[in-house]
């Protein structure tokens, strides 16, 4: 037990204080002495052949120090994809090179083809305007189906196709699934779009390169969710800088949501420029650049079929999906539509047959990669929309059809038909809780009240399961991952008894600086405030894989737990020595070591001090010091699950949808800090509601991003959202990590989009409109059109 505020306590976040005082230090807040400023020239056409880039006029502009083009980086490596996908025919995926700066061709609007470094940012931006780019515009590849048609223009000429891969999951299940669907008493089919999203973390990306000619050391300060992976990519693939000569520092980071997992060319450029110019080089993205060059999310076009008995028992799900990967393969882009999507296509259900086909398509658009939820929102949306449609066709209640097919509590561990082994859960219990908290029984009365006001009220129900705590290295290795997905922590007990914990996870809103100490304090029986977390700097932390995929607590937190256990083991040896007894006779409880059956005891603090003043240590048995590292590789994914309800009112005159209530019942296993968990779910819900009602990254047929600013792209604002009711009081412990936690960062964004759309369709159906589906975002125009055609 912690002295105060250990696991399970809604401890206030200590990191808040610096943020609330304006004393956070984000990358753009660092300006080393002699900093020079970088600005990029970016393509204004989606597909173009570069004939010539004339930089002479720009180079002669006031303050300009250097101008770089793709030629300068022709010899350095490409930024690789992290997962190798194999197509159904056994062919490896197509993997065109992603250069630091476009070379030969530009492939999307915003593709950087030159960079200027100048004394001031204004001078750099002025000089970018003076670069003369002779680029022949080619036909743009935008629509995925057209991209796969013969005769289409090409994004990458050298691979002679726009298809990256054609993947089947599980290919051995294909024939049985086809057969089951052919013979099924009822088949429901739905075609849907999972709309492209722009992540829009509020802090735009920023990178500062530094080089010390005295030591040959490089430093990259950058907006990253995983500094070690960024360093590894730069060292091993892109620039060949030895890892031990490159420090990557991701200080305070203003949100990521996936978009800052990846290594981007701008990072390599500022490092190369810093060395060449012997000056720090800083680039700060504008919001416009963020829209055009950050990795986007989602963008699937899917046909899903659900075969079932007349009583609603599921027989098979079959899915065909086109997944947009944009113009280049971003680091996780090939894993997102495959192993983070196809493996979830059995949902919470005992369905025996699942087959998923995903064709990944290159287009002349910004790269698409993992964005909050990454594949699981796409899976959940397809499943939960088609289930709703099937329930309506069969005359079943949406709650009942789900309950009929839920995996039951006595079936764990449960091998799903999509290849995962769910370790724990209780979906009926969550649905019970939802019926209660969301007062589903009271819906009819609320609907009647809305009708009196001329509004169509609808109720949307959803259940989801997701796989997070990414991920067991042995499993992902089999599935094509080129990295391991363990994490690491070093617990250093200082001589005076306080504790520094160096972690591989990176906190950019998740509250690690508060929650991780709760875990350590609980194990050691000390005050959480005596524990400090160090993260984000590769020169200080062990090699961990960063924060994404709701992995920080489940994977890195487990490493913290294991390292702390090692501390207790070592401290027990020291305590036994101090009390002149055998280690096996020493118990550790509430911060004290005691010899069983005696009143001999020493405090944790005294043991810590002794560890560093080992005047009388038996050095062959006990080393001085008290510092331990653990690498933790999970045995399985973790499987959070939930049941969500949403009520909407639709204005039949305008098609405007108002969300009246949103209730999320989630099972996250054990909860370390319930306040932080609630906040994570609320944030996820806002992003899911944003996807469902507001947000859309729209490219026109020429590959121009129409929703390319915060004036055009509808971010959820305070007055777009309802009160968000979040309940995670029901929990089934994760069975395979030491804290019993499952991961909460993405749940809200996974569970909410189908809940909202189900509610809108329900409202229209109850209002007498024969509407099966409306694609997201469910804008007033789309709703009105659905009601009036």
């Amino acid at each position, binding site marked *: 037990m912690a002295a105060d*505020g250990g696991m399970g*306590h*809604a*401890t*206030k*976040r200590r*990191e*808040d*204080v*610096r*943020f*609330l*005082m*304006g*004393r*956070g*230090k*984000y990358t*753009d*807040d660092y*300006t080393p002495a002699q900093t020079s400023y970088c600005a990029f020239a970016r393509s204004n056409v989606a597909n173009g052949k570069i004939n010539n880039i004339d930089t002479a006029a720009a180079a002669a502009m006031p303050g300009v120090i250097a101008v770089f083009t793709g030629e300068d980086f022709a010899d350095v490596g490409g930024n690789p994809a992290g997962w190798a996908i194999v197509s159904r025919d056994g062919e490896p995926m197509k993997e065109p090179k992603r250069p630091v700066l476009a070379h030969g061709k530009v492939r999307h609007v915003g593709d950087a083809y030159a960079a200027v470094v100048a004394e001031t*940012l*204004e001078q750099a931006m002025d000089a970018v305007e003076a670069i003369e780019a002779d680029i022949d515009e080619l036909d743009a590849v935008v629509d995925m189906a057209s991209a796969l048609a013969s005769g289409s223009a090409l994004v990458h000429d050298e691979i002679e196709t726009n298809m990256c891969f054609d993947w089947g999951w599980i290919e051995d299940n294909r024939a049985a699934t086809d057969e089951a669907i052919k013979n099924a008493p009822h088949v429901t089919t739905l075609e849907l779009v999972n709309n492209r999203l722009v992540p*829009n*973390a*509020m*802090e*735009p990306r920023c990178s500062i390169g530094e080089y010390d000619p005295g030591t040959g050391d490089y430093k990259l300060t950058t907006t990253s969710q995983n500094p070690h992976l960024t360093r590894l990519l730069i060292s091993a693939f892109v620039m060949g800088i030895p890892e031990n000569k490159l420090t990557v520092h991701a200080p*305070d*980071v*203003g*949100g990521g*949501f996936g978009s800052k997992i990846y290594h981007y060319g701008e990072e390599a450029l500022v490092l190369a420029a810093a060395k060449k110019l012997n000056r720090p080089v800083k680039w700060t993205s*504008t*919001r416009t650049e963020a829209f055009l060059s950050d990795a986007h999310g989602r963008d699937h076009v899917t046909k899903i079929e659900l075969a079932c008995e007349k009583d609603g028992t599921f027989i098979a799900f079959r899915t065909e999906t086109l997944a947009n990967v944009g113009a280049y393969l971003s680091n996780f882009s090939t894993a997102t539509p495959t192993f983070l999507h196809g493996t979830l296509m059995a949902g919470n259900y005992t369905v025996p047959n699942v087959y998923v086909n995903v064709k990944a398509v290159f287009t002349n658009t910004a790269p698409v990669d993992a964005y909050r939820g990454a594949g699981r929102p796409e899976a959940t949306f397809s499943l939960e929309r088609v289930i709703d449609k099937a329930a309506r066709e069969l005359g079943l209640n949406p709650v009942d059809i789900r309950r009929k097919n839920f995996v039951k509590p006595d079936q764990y561990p449960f091998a799903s038909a999509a290849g995962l082994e769910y370790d724990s859960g209780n979906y009926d219990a969550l649905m019970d809780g939802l019926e209660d908290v969301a007062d589903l029984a009271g819906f009819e009365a609320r609907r009647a009240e809305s009708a009196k006001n001329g509004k169509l009220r609808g109720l949307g129900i959803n259940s989801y399961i997701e796989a997070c705590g990414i991920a067991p290295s042995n499993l992902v290795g089999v599935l094509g991952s080129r990295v391991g997905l363990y994490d690491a922590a070093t617990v250093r007990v200082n001589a005076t008894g306080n504790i520094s914990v160096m972690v591989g996870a990176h906190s*950019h*809103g998740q*509250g690690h600086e508060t929650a991780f100490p709760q875990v350590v304090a609980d194990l050691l029986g000390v005050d959480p405030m005596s524990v400090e977390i160090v993260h984000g700097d590769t020169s200080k932390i062990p090699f961990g894989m960063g924060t994404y995929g709701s992995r920080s607590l489940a994977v890195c937190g487990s490493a913290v737990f294991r390292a702390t256990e090692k501390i207790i083991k070592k401290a027990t040896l020291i305590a036994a020595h101090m009390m002149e007894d055998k280690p096996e006779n020493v118990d550790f409880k509430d911060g004290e070591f005691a010899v069983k059956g005696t009143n001999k005891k020493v405090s944790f603090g005294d043991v810590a001090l002794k560890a560093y003043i080992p005047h009388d240590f038996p050095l062959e048995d006990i080393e001085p010091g008290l510092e331990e590292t653990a690498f933790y590789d999970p045995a399985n994914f973790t499987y959070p699950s939930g049941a969500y309800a949403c009520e909407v009112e639709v204005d039949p005159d305008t098609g405007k949808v108002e969300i009246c209530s949103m209730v999320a019942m989630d099972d996250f296993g054990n909860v370390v800090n319930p*306040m*932080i968990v*609630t*906040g*994570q779910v*609320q*944030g996820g*819900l*806002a*992003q899911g509601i944003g996807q469902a009602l507001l947000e859309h990254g729209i490219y026109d047929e020429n590959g121009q991003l129409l929703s390319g*600013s*915060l*004036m055009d792209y509808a*971010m*959820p*604002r*305070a*007055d777009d*959202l309802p*009160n*968000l009711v979040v309940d995670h009081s029901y929990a089934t412990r994760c069975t395979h990590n030491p804290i019993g936690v499952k991961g909460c960062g993405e749940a*809200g964004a996974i569970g909410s989009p189908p809940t909202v759309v189900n509610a809108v369709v329900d409202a229209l159906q109850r209002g007498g409109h024969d509407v099966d589906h409306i694609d997201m975002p469910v804008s007033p125009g789309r709703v009105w059109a659905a009601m009036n055609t």
Partner: protein
Amino acid sequence: MPTINLNVNGTSMSAEVENRTVLSTALRERLGMTGTHIGCDTSQCGGCVVHVNGQAVKSCTIFAVEADGAEVETIEGQAYIDGSLNIIQQAFQDHHGLQCGFCTPGMIMSAAALLKENPKPTEAEIRAYLSGNICRCTGYQGIVNAIMAASGQSVAIAAE
């Protein structure tokens, strides 16, 4: 380049700026006041809200030269002199009104302006007032709760 004089959080400061330099850039780049954040280029996000002569202003919407002679309040001047948080800041911590912290300075400055105008706003009034401040992390629930609490209205406290 023109020189401007500002009183920032009670301290006189001066800086050379270009005519095209906006106040947010002047605060960050010329005066080193990096608590004010720049999250967009279309005056939508609200990360740069400061008070100019008592009025809440998106500091990317005015040129630094326009603010010459003005009294400017920024996030750095909001806590008490002993470093303790003011009532709005404390409410944001108590009600988990921030996650990554990037929008927070603008949120705090907008909230302060709201409560000066309207000391007991309803939840709907808070949501409407904040429509010029975008937060991507919290879903706004903690922010709305914090402002309700800071204005003395009853909200269940989130933190212990």
